[in-house]
């Protein structure tokens, strides 16, 4: 088990190294000189050069890459070109909105999907199954940001139960959670639909396995066999999807933040793009990629927890 975790950890570090190189190179080839952009088109050549030196843009690429990676490792993400404040501080503030939102949505999606998938699999082919599957078919087709607009129309504008957007900050946790509820629901429902379908089909596959028949021959009822022997075996494909969903949710959160005017990473990155504040873009993108790779690593560990066969083999 330990060696398995070790192997995955090595692979995690490698992925991060390559990903950081990709992000750095992409931003490097981006046209436009940040220094000139910051100073405006009328700036003097020597002023621009001075700013370039101050920002470290005149150093060779390899050196800058290493400095950037070194900064990432120590938590120093550099200084924003436009705001002249540390990027790390800006990102940290915004992360306190985006991360809770994504986790909230992940929890909601999982809580909704498991009972639905389990129920549909247990009632396979009957009316209950058909109804759940019809609902998920619709759920998959709905774009989350449009669904968010419908939620605003119904619950904020017509019923007035929630605010239509904005974020009061975490000083009042209840108000903060309330402000994140509609965005989380909008994010979670389409993902829950996907997860429920995957869970159902994984369970139905497992129900056809010989060991379920063995369990029935031991005297377990159909539902006991499904619950005690089916679920854990069906978790493997489901975990894959849960892992992938986190990256979808994080990316989705960026879009949903636009609907609800939430001051998260999404707003930060769009502001940074329009201001060509590339160092912020670079840092936020790297952070998102890091989150996805980390979740993949955790998913791999979860596989080994679920499936003893993986602990030994590669």
């Amino acid at each position, binding site marked *: 088990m330990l060696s398995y975790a070790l192997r995955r950890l090595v692979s995690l570090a490698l992925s991060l190294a390559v990903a950081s190189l990709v992000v750095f190179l992409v931003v490097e080839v981006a046209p436009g000189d940040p220094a000139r952009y910051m100073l405006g088109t009328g700036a003097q050549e020597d002023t621009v050069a001075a700013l370039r030196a101050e920002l470290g843009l005149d150093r060779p690429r390899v050196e800058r890459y290493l400095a950037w990676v070194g900064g990432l490792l120590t938590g120093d993400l550099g200084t924003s070109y436009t705001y002249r404040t540390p990027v790390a501080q800006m990102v940290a503030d915004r992360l306190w909105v985006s991360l809770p939102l994504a986790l909230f949505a992940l929890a909601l999606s999982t809580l909704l999907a498991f009972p639905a998938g389990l129920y549909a699999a247990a009632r396979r082919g009957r009316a209950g199954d058909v109804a759940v599957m019809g609902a998920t078919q619709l759920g998959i087709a709905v774009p989350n940001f449009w669904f968010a607009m419908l939620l605003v129309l119904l619950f904020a504008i017509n019923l007035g139960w929630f605010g239509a957007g904005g974020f009061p900050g975490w000083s009042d946790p209840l108000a903060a959670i309330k402000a994140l509820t509609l965005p989380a629901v909008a994010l979670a429902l389409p993902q829950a639909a996907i997860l429920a379908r995957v869970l159902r089909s994984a369970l139905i596959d497992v129900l056809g396995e010989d060991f379920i028949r063995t369990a029935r021959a031991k005297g377990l009822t159909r539902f006991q066999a499904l619950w005690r022997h089916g679920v854990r075996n069906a978790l493997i494909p489901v975990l894959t999807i849960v892992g992938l969903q986190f990256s979808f949710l994080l990316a989705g959160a960026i879009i949903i933040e636009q609907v609800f005017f939430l001051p998260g990473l*999404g707003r930060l990155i769009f502001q940074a793009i329009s201001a060509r504040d590339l160092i912020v873009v670079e840092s936020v993108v790297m952070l998102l990629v890091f989150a996805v790779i980390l979740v993949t690593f955790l998913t791999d560990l979860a596989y080994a927890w679920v499936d003893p066969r993986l602990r030994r083999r590669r």
Partner: protein
Amino acid sequence: MTRRLLPGAVLSALVILAALVSFVWTPGDVASVEVAQRLQPPSAAHWLGTDQLGRDILSMLMVGARTSIAVALLAVGIGIGAGVPLGLAAAALHGSWLDEVIMRGNDLIFAFPALVIAILITAIAGPGAVNAIVAIGIFNVPVFARLSRGAALSLWSRDFVLAARLAGKGKPRISAEHILPNLANLLIVQGTIQFSLGILAEAGLSYVGLGAQPPVPSWGRMLAEAQTLVAIAPHVALMPGLAIVLTVLGLNLLGDGLRDALDPRLRDLRT
């Protein structure tokens, strides 16, 4: 068998037909701005009403369908065109360094959600429909590479491939003659699913301004523009959303229906 295939095929065909018809005819002019006619609810003159600039929404949706379909279709093309050969090569050379490189590369792309790729491309080249195509296309590559590698690996373990090797056929030829034809159905089904995901992704990207730019109409941007009007004229926000839902629903039903109809054993190949 046709329980899902028929409604799926009809819905998808309707959307594609609407997009094609829009090249020669639309109920209203999408370029003409008539402020007097703005935010009209659905009526006999404007079946789906008018938007904040007085343009006919049905016409906008028909023209917008072209963007959605073109972006999603080209992105699927990129995914299949690059992903399938990579997957076939990885399977044919299973266990070699090339297989390892291809699969690690796929994992790496998976770490960049389509939106992140779009953000990066926008940082270099600025926003636009091509940006959306490339971002969604790149994201499709590992999907098709993994799918075809997994299915091809299970085919390579079959005895008929051994028989072909004993018939003196090389790996490229076996991949083309025996593996690819047996993957065709699977690719059609997955292609349909990725097509529908592409429609959703394009809408999301153009909603946040990373997709098609004005004056090219797109469903996502129609929604972005309608957002502030949702309280006074809900239909402006409802119609583009419904168009997306019906299109994606139709394509998903088509994909499921095709899977049932083409080969009930397809599921065995998906690992």
